[in-house]
């Protein structure tokens, strides 16, 4: 009797006559039962592997759709670059929100951190006479501190992120009004004494489109985050913590430390958004950024990032923010009641979550 060598033996092993029928049967070791996939299932698999595909498709379709509906006015470089300008702040805050949501958390205080940091930058320059670069750094410090507080409450005291940030949202907002005493620092004063604060309002004109430094900063930030989240160990750990914190802990990921880092960086990004906001509105105003938290969550959800954590691409978030911008501007140019924009955004949100759930059902 011949001794068989190797499991993946292709040559017939049986020598006896009654064993010859075995040669015709399956020779391979255990394998999955691969049925032929229907086109819908193929689409599902493709969408599952490329996380930012759905929002990108919706974005392209909506730009094309409004271009046909509204015509030349919509397709002009000016209009399209205007969408980017109007969406820049939401995009930066959305990046901060993405980091937090990827860890299965949520941050309702992003807008308040942005405004508080903005006020710190302005007031430190004008009330205490500090040079503008120092004030900007103090603003960053303020944002990072606010984020760190959120992170400590979530990770060390194990409080639910929704509750924590609901509370800190109110606290930071009230601190903002109490500290600023409702003073608005005029744009002309800032221009004269501390133009660095308005830096991100500067722009370049390229072929009829106006690209502000704020838009460039948003794009660079999103690309940087995309790289960190996909190509560094730290980024992979963020996904792991969101997907299954216990498994991550057992694999050696320092979960509480990661959470504190994520929330702190989120606060830092919000402080940066505050600096960009001064550039956009010119003045330092304590009433700005009222709906920033809701807008950022909308961008994140429409961008296909799962609120349950561990899944989604920051590129999806930026496409989500642009989709909202495209719909707002397109419907307004078309001349509809502004309420239709809100209605359609609500439909988009539900649609995005439903598609995300469908894609998750991929098996095999």
């Amino acid at each position: 009797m011949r001794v068989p060598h190797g499991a993946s033996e292709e040559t017939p092993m049986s020598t006896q006559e009654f064993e010859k029928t075995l040669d015709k049967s399956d020779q391979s070791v255990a394998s999955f039962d691969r049925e032929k996939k229907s086109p819908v299932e193929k689409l599902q698999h493709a969408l599952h592997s490329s996380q930012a595909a759905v929002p990108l498709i919706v974005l392209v379709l909506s730009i094309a759709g409004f271009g046909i509906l509204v015509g030349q006015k919509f397709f002009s470089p000016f209009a399209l670059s205007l969408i980017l300008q109007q969406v820049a702040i939401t995009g930066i805050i959305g990046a901060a929100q993405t980091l937090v949501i990827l860890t299965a958390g949520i941050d309702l205080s992003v807008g308040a951190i942005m405004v508080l940091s903005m006020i710190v930058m302005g007031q430190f320059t004008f009330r205490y006479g500090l040079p503008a670069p120092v004030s900007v750094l103090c603003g960053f410090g303020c944002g990072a501190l606010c984020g760190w507080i959120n992170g400590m409450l979530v990770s060390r005291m194990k409080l639910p992120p929704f509750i924590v940030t609901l509370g800190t949202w109110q606290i930071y907002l009230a601190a903002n009004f109490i500290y600023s005493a409702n003073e608005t620092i005029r744009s002309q004063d800032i221009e004269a004494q501390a133009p660095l604060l308005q830096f991100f309002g500067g722009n370049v004109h390229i072929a009829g489109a106006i690209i502000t430094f704020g838009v460039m900063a948003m794009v660079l930030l999103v690309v940087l985050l995309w790289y960190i989240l996909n190509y560094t160990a730290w980024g992979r750990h963020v996904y792991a913590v969101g997907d299954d914190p216990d498994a991550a802990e057992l694999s050696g990921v320092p979960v509480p430390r990661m959470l504190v880092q994520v929330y702190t960086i989120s606060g830092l990004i919000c402080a940066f958004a505050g600096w960009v906001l001064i550039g956009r509105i010119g003045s330092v105003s304590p009433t700005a950024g009222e709906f920033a938290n809701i807008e950022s969550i909308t961008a994140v959800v429409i961008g296909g990032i799962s609120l349950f954590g561990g899944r989604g691409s920051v590129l999806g978030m930026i496409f989500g923010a642009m989709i909202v911008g495209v719909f707002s501007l397109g419907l307004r140019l078309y001349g509809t009641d502004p309420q239709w924009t809100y209605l359609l955004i609500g439909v988009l949100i539900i649609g995005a979550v439903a598609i995300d759930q469908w894609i998750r059902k991929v098996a095999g």
Partner: protein
Amino acid sequence: MSFKYGMLTTSAAALAVSVLFAAPAFAGVGACLITKTDTNPFFVKMKEGATAKAKELGVDLKAYAGKDDGDNEGQVAAVETCIAAGAKGILITPSDTKAIVPTIKKARDAGILVIALDTPLDPIESADMTMATDNFQAGFLIGAYAKAALGDKAASAHIGFLDINTKQVTVDVLRDQGFMKGFGIDIKNPAVIGDEDDKRIVGHDYTNGNPEGGRKAMENLLQKDPDINVIHTINEPAAAGAYEALKAVGKEKQVLIMSVDGGCPGVKNVQAGIIGGTSQQYPLLMASMGIEAIAQFAKDGSKPKVTEGKNFFDTGVNLVTDKPVAGVKSIDTKEGLAKCWG
């Protein structure tokens, strides 16, 4: 045993303390000031004026505010608190001029004097008295000025309107329609924004009265018509935001910005040539006259009287501009700065 005793004394003490803080009791004549928000400098100034006058006359003043411009529930809660606390008078700048009327009626039925400041209720008789700027006149002045300043170009002007929001708030409607009347546009129904069909109107957009909204609204209107050359803005913060939007596309010299408010930062903007002219209001006067009226009502039950020919008490309005035009009365920015607030 000692633990139970400790718990009992602590809870009794807590109960006593909470009773102290439960209902705000008024010492003497009680008055309530309820503003739309406490972040808009206009209302901050109003509160300061009311507090100063109340101290002078020995009136106990409690101040409340909604969360944002449009928060009706917060104001309803404040009115009900004042009724429960036994206030003699309520001064209110209503966020929703129609929705707050039933609650105001409750206050008046309880014998409280209710004065609407700055923004009239709808219908205006819902309050005992309204002390406000003549907002229609404020709009009319800047509209007439804009028409005269444009001269021949007024017949083919491209006019944009930056309003508060879509809710047709009285102050928004009055200023918007006043501007149109001053400019010579047929306003059709003066109680409604948006029913006009004059070809010169580019459109209306919404700012929520803050600079961020002003910038976005200006960008949107520029999208509709890049040749806009005149804009009406609901207040100076919105005008400041609109200016930033124009500066970003290099059109700040081609658009005449008109506004309403007369706050010190706004008058400085007129001086700097950013705003063409602004209708100045006097919130300090509104607040102090309101407190005086409440003190008088508490003394002998008499109610304040309207300005002759109007159905409210007019606290006055002046057009502030450094480039006066014939036929429109105005004061210069030096005088404006002396009278400004905020």
